[in-house]
């Protein structure tokens, strides 16, 4: 078995293994989960470093025919290129970290870890798949676990509403995207979902402009919803606030990226005319993410809502990079995706630990925690600083690259993005730090205990990765740039010279 498939199967097999363990053997359940996810992370990391940046096409590729009936032919087809290798790596890491931070799950840990591992496996599968139906399949695998995780282990009064909201939103988005994928698949005539096959096919015979103008928005808004594109974002912060730490980590960090990934993998290269028509719309919408969500984050009293909204604001950068349709911008988008995939889980893990100690994430009820929790505080400062784009952490590299990439085509939106990233981000992140760590110690918060040695591991892991990619973003950019070039090449290869298709034509 090739290692890419192995990395997908490992979490799923661990889940299966846990299924066979009786529920009251908690230690064994935990051990399997930790080992399974740890091994996954290890293999994912080794894949990342084994990946050879210069080479064309996909690496670690493997195909297994799945369905061939009539004209329909689908295959389990996985492979890695610059676009997904980073995501696979961070999925492994975040998965491992999310298992590690779940040390305080007492209620039905068996089910918890099964669901969590399913999420991890699903995310890995989604990123590795080169068959779009499989991508969809794996991506949706996380839906039910998310729902149950929020419902059973979630926090807050609102968790049921949040669980429903997140599930319905994500399903609606996914289905709209599926409609787009199906339309694409049917329209090509070859009736395949294989990325490579579609690419060759569409390069030779692009779809009609009308069709593209229909398919692109389906993909854009469908996948956009999965990412939290304004104004389809209201599930995110609420959902994360209600989710248990591990689920919030996996979802905000990893699963959210699937939508962006699909936009880059499918929508841009396959539908150049659609992109030409719709990317200006995306550019304006990402303003919503950047400014609206930033502002919303500004006045949140609940730390999780703050992080959730800030994560939406960060997604604005990713969308901006896509909207710029430049090599630099798209490279930046992918770096942002990887960076945010580490950052958001880090923040949620911090918030989760905070809640486990102080019993609240209400900013007005916290304060002065740095004295008793110096290690936690240091990590939190680092994480939040990464969140407001401090150089040295990967986010800065990604965001700056996006800004550079988008400046020429979308200067005013870059101005907004800089404002959002440099000012708004700093304001709410610092506000949070100020209310949580700084100030005089509170009497009711004297029982808090700092992170012990082992508890530090997940945080250290995420911070280390953030620092690694922040100090040497070339690790990512070298891998991404060739793909970004291909995407831009394909996406600018349109049949109409400019944005003539201003009017949506009925099919």
């Amino acid at each position: 078995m090739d290692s890419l498939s192995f990395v997908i199967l490992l979490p799923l097999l661990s889940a299966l293994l846990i299924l066979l363990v009786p529920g009251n053997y908690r230690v064994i359940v935990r051990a399997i989960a930790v080992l399974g996810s740890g091994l996954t992370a290890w293999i994912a990391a080794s894949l990342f470093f084994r990946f050879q940046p210069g080479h064309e096409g996909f690496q670690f590729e493997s195909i297994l025919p799945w369905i061939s009936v009539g004209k329909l032919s689908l295959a389990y087809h996985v492979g890695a290129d610059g676009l997904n290798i980073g995501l696979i790596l961070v999925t492994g890491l975040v998965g491992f970290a999310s298992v590690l931070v779940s040390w305080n799950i007492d209620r039905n840990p068996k089910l918890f870890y099964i669901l969590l591992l399913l999420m991890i496996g699903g995310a890995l599968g989604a990123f590795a798949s080169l068959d779009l139906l499989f991508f969809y399949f794996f991506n949706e695998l996380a839906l039910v676990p998310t729902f149950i995780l929020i419902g059973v282990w979630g926090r807050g009064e609102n968790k049921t509403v949040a669980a429903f909201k997140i599930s319905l939103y994500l399903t609606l988005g996914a289905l709209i995207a599926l409609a787009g994928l199906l339309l694409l698949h049917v329209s090509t005539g070859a009736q395949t979902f294989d990325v490579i096959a579609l690419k060759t096919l569409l390069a030779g015979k692009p779809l009609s402009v009308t069709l593209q103008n229909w398919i692109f928005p389906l993909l854009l808004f469908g996948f956009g919803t999965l990412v939290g594109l304004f104004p389809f974002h209201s599930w995110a912060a609420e959902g994360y606030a209600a989710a248990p730490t591990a689920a919030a980590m996996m979802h905000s960090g990893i699963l959210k990226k699937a939508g962006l990934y699909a936009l880059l993998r499918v929508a841009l290269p396959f539908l150049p005319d659609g992109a030409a028509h719709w990317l200006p719309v995306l550019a304006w919408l990402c303003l919503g993410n950047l400014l609206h969500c930033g502002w919303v984050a500004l006045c949140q009293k609940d730390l999780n809502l703050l992080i959730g909204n800030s994560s939406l604001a960060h997604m604005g950068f990713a969308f901006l990079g896509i909207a710029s349709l430049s090599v630099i911008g798209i490279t930046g988008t992918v770096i942002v995706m990887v960076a945010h995939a580490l950052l958001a889980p880090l923040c949620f893990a911090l918030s989760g630990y905070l809640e486990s100690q102080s019993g609240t994430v209400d900013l007005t009820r916290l304060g002065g925690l740095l004295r008793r929790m110096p290690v936690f505080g240091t990590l939190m400062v680092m994480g939040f600083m990464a969140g407001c784009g401090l150089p040295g952490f990967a986010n800065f590299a990604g965001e700056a690259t996006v800004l550079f990439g988008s400046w020429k085509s979308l200067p005013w939106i870059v101005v907004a993005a800089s404002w959002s990233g440099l000012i708004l981000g700093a304001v709410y992140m610092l506000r949070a730090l100020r209310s949580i760590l700084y100030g005089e110690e509170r009497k009711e918060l004297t029982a808090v205990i700092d992170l012990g040695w082992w508890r530090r591991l997940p945080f250290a892991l995420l911070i280390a990765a953030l620092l690694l990619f922040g100090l040497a973003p070339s690790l990512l950019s070298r891998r991404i740039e060739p793909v970004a070039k291909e995407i831009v090449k394909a996406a600018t290869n349109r049949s109409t010279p400019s944005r003539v298709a201003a009017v949506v034509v009925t099919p």
Partner: protein
Amino acid sequence: MEHAAVLHAVESGSKIQDLAWMILVAPLVMAVGTTLFVPRDRTLAAVFNIGGVILSFCLSFVLFCVFGGGSAQCTPFEWLPIAGLDVHIGLHIDPLASLMLLVVTGVASLVMIYSIGYMHDDRSYPRFFASLSLFVFSMLGIVLADNFVMLFIFWELVGISSYLLIGFWYDRPAAADASKKAFLTNRIGDFGFMLGILMVWSALGTVDFAVAKAKLAENPALLGSMAGIAGLLIFMGAMGKSAQFPLHVWLPDAMEGPTPVSALIHAATMVAAGIYMLCRVFFLYTAAPGWPGPLSMLGDLSAATLISLVGAVTALLAALIAVQQNDIKRILAFSTLSQLGLMVMAVGLGAKAANPSAAMFHLVTHAFFKAMLFLGAGSVIHACHHEQDIWKMGGLKAKMPITFWTFLIGTAALAGLPPFSGFYSKDEIFALALETNPILFGVGVLVSVLTTFYMSRLVLVAFFGAARSESADHAHESPGSMKWPLVVLAIPSLMVAWLPLGPFLSESFDPAHPVHLGDIFFGPFNHNPIAAFFGFGAALFGFSLAYSLYWKAAKDPLPTQLGLLSKVMRNRFYFDEIYETIFISLHNLFSHIADWIDRWVISGLMVRGVSGLVNLSGRALRLVQTGNIQSYTFFFTVGVLLVVLLARK
């Protein structure tokens, strides 16, 4: 690679390179090592970090001596290599940088030694040193950066170090707020800086200083109509870091940090980074001015001129405010602001002469004497049991002689009395102003008068007369680790200007310019007597004014004499309040509107509306299922009708 083309070939290139990298990295290694491995051990932390910075200093000295006035670019390592945006981390060494290295590491070493005593009782001793090391690393990064992005990176790192150090005493709400304010205000500047970098990059196609400079030298109009905007945006960065009007509000608050921090960061080095950066990217300001359509009325007015105006305003404003402050550190802080304003003014004025060395010169002298002043103030505060109000001091001259004498030297330097260093550097600025813009020269002289006035006021009130409080009464001289840095700093404060710094610096801009070593000491009076005499006279006038008002005064007579103006000055012209209402409230308003939209329009109206509608229609529709067989048959019949109707064409 592009920048390879402009890399100066240096014989001892590889050694220089190693040296430069070591200078940069040593403090970082110490900071990280302290945090990770000896977070508890006080002695080790102090030894490591001071050792690291001293090592950097020594290496800088070696570099300075060996390399002298040469310039080189070290082989970079790739940071973000994307076609069209080739960002690398590389070091750029030239006289400007090597001098700045010396200043930064030198002052830092002394401040850190001073901190041994000053911070002795603090529980977070290791954290303090680690943070200082981190700062030194970041600052050195700015100094050595060879491209805009790298500069920006370290720029931000300096910001975060400053944030950490201002908020060092995190459980003091004032400190916590001040650190936040400092960071945010800086961020506003950085916002402009970033946009400026983007503009320059898109116009020049590179972020590398050397390449950009070469390109601009080839074609000064390359920036086109964006030249003015880009210059101003880049300057915004300096406005934030160097606390220029209107982003100056953070600096006084930053005094909530420990005094050594104020000395090193908020007086000597970090705040000077803005000036340094402007000098580094000076080639932008010498390029042809240009404005985009809507701003075309600005015409030939260059960005540099606007910058000099901003500097002048800052200098004057801060000096005025300083006159009516009573907190010893705040007086110094506003004085710093004022001096920074002068430097910025000098940079702006220097653009016409294509030479910013005046600003750099003042930067260097100011670094030493201002650091010393702050350390002296720290010593006073330390002695008076953390009393900072000068009106609660008095008579310290006898109790703390070393502090007094060093402080006096610093004051003299700051006031611009010959032969103290400040005189020479200020004089260059005055001379420059006189040559290029007489109005600003007037402003400069006025600032000089005010400077001498408030500094004399400080010295007269704090050190002379009788002790006005218990703590001042019981004050005694500080320990050796605090004393000796003062003494050591006094030497450059006095003499640094005797070295041929100005010409040395201008070499990096105009290598053909000859160096007149002999000219230095009485140079100003020969070179431009009007400026020199005005400078000297201003100092004297300021001092006599202060002497007349404050010699043995028990309380400040000015408020009664100036009335409302004094109040306004004391309250810093109400800038904080204005910002509070405009900037912060506006953002809060937006934030609440956005939240409202999220809550009520998107979540409420749209989402809940749709879900409610669906729910309601479900509830309504199911009422069709009455359970009554007859209605079901009825529906069946209607259904058949419906089917038949629908099947019709």
